[in-house]
């Protein structure tokens, strides 16, 4: 029953993706700047004929609706076109860069949960204690600190001053790793490569903290306030009246309910993480999607931008789906 509903939800993402594709297509073309100009800009003396030729090659001389037709037709066949600048199929570029971004996003999400869950719970249980005040001040800092700044500070301290963590890249040059999925941590686990596991985890640490700090702060605050509300509820009193231990009262009766609003926020924050990637990847020279997209935008590399935005949209839709499924487990009143 549940499996069918989930499948149904997955299928409804198809028209959503279709809509996203069309919107992205038009929005990119509304932005000022001509890809051919930018491409040829470097060799100032491009002839009119060369320009025409490139335009024709990329179908840019055709009316918009014809261009859209080409794009959608190709996309349906899994072909997202050719990057203007990098001269490679967009799909190949995305496949090459995506794992790095996924790895960092997961790292950031895990780090933010590891930080936020205990802090959110403890500061609610010990409301107004020193711990509560310190964590909420910390959360305020976490939200207001710009990602690039935190990244640079962390690099200066841990990589330059203490020299215990690497400052850039995903893995050291002298560490060998056979790629399976492109997620280095997972790959080193799969191939039983302990040195690579250690090395890739160390590389992942600072970028994940940089990316996750703001999200951790938001999750901690939401969790704290929903825990505070739930801890005042009658059913928590009932649990105590039954003779339940404080641990059970907090971790079972209260947390289970406080997680419901928290999960929604975590889901939304995944979108923030994806956006934050662009900056953090640049600071840490992380070979991910974010940097690719920034380049693509500067160069008006239409097909690449389109492809990347589609990936972001799919990730967002899938995250929402996961949130909805989690929801049905946390809140029995809701069914898919």
């Amino acid at each position, binding site marked *: 029953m549940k499996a069918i509903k989930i499948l149904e939800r997955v299928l409804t993402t198809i028209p959503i993706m279709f809509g996203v594709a069309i919107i992205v297509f038009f929005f990119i073309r509304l932005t000022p700047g001509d890809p051919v100009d930018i491409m040829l800009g470097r060799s100032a003396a491009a002839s009119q004929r060369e320009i025409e030729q490139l335009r024709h090659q990329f179908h840019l001389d055709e009316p918009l609706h014809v261009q859209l037709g080409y794009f959608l037709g190709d996309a349906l066949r899994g072909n997202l076109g050719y990057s203007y600048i990098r001269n490679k199929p967009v799909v190949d570029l995305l496949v090459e860069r995506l794992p790095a971004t996924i790895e960092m996003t997961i790292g950031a999400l895990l780090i933010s949960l590891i930080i936020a869950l205990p802090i959110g719970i403890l500061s609610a249980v010990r409301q107004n204690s020193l711990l509560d005040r310190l964590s909420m001040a910390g959360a305020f800092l976490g939200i207001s600190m710009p990602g690039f700044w935190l990244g640079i500070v962390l690099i200066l301290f841990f990589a330059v001053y203490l020299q215990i963590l690497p400052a850039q890249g995903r893995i050291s040059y002298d560490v060998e790793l056979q790629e399976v999925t492109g997620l280095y941590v997972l790959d080193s686990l799969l191939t039983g490569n302990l040195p690579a596991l250690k090395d890739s985890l160390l590389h992942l640490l600072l970028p994940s903290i940089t990316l996750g700090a703001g999200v951790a702060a938001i999750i901690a605050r939401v969790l704290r306030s929903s825990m505070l509300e739930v801890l005042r509820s*009658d059913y928590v009193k009932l649990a105590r009246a039954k003779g339940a231990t404080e641990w059970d009262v907090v971790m079972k009766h209260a947390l289970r309910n406080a997680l419901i609003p928290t999960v929604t926020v975590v889901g939304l924050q995944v979108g923030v993480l994806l956006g934050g990637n662009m900056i953090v990847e640049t600071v840490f020279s992380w070979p991910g999607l974010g940097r690719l997209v920034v380049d693509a935008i500067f160069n008006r590399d239409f097909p690449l931008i389109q492809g990347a935005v589609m990936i972001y949209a799919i990730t967002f839709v899938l995250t929402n789906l996961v949130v909805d499924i989690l929801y049905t487990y946390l809140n*029995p009143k809701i069914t898919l």
Partner: protein
Amino acid sequence: MTNTPLLELKNLTTVFPTRRGLVRAVADVSLSLAQGELLGIVGESGCGKSVTMLSILRLISTPGRIAAGQALFQGRDLLKLSDGAMRQIRGKDIAMVFQDPLSTLNPAFPVGEQIRESLRIHHIAQNHFAREKERVIELMSEVGISSPTDRFHEYPHQFSGGMQQRALIAIALACEPKILLADEPTTSLDVTIQAQIMDLMRRINEARGTAIVLVTHNLDLAAEFCQRIAVMYAGRLVEIGTTDQVIETPQHPYTRGLLTCIPRISAQRTRIEPIPGNVPDLANVPPGCAFAERCSEMQPICQNDLIPFFEIAPGHLVRCLRHSSATPD
């Protein structure tokens, strides 16, 4: 019957610091409950009935606190027990049915599971799942939840209000407590269900000798159900006696006021006469008798000092100066 009561409150005082000042929600309450007794606590909304019950179980949440007094259970002061020892008593020896059934079950867990938890906490069925489940189903049918085997796995939102209240009673009864604190167990339910629930509680009292404290603002209900009644006003007890004493010969003007508030069709009197005036702010209870301002028989002396209890008949105590000729308790 033994001489030591099962539960004895001595000068119990519970306060909440608020912006308006210190709210004395329970002020100097002394009360005793015998084995198997049915005791009613009546009073208007906000007079401190629920806080009294919660204080007994030490479930007052900060910043509220029990400021003074004793709560002796079988001679042991609950207020002096360690947290661990108190947990052993909660749900096992003294169980509580909360006021609002619709918000008291945890929405995230199946109802059967929540009843089972009571058994598990106090190791009633040796933590043996099958035995626990069997007992839960027994309890569910005992409190009148139909097809308990199917409903074991249902969630609170799939239960009606009456059924949720029954489930709460099942939770309270799971460990066969010696005392059941029932805080307005029927207020949110319709009359038929109300009668069924009261019937259920009476049967439990008879079958197991469970002492029940029935908290209600409905004096009629208390009169029908209880052997003794305590009347509470603004955090204080104002009159205690057997049901006959309190209903037939009420001595405190407030108790009389409550009685005339109840519409009695049989007595050709359908007009409800509310007591004029308002309950005093519990952060600012005037000295003397808290009811003085609303009392038609008030004398200047009533507002001077705290009024003691006067015993006007064996077991009939009243806090009113009109009885100052009787011996102060």
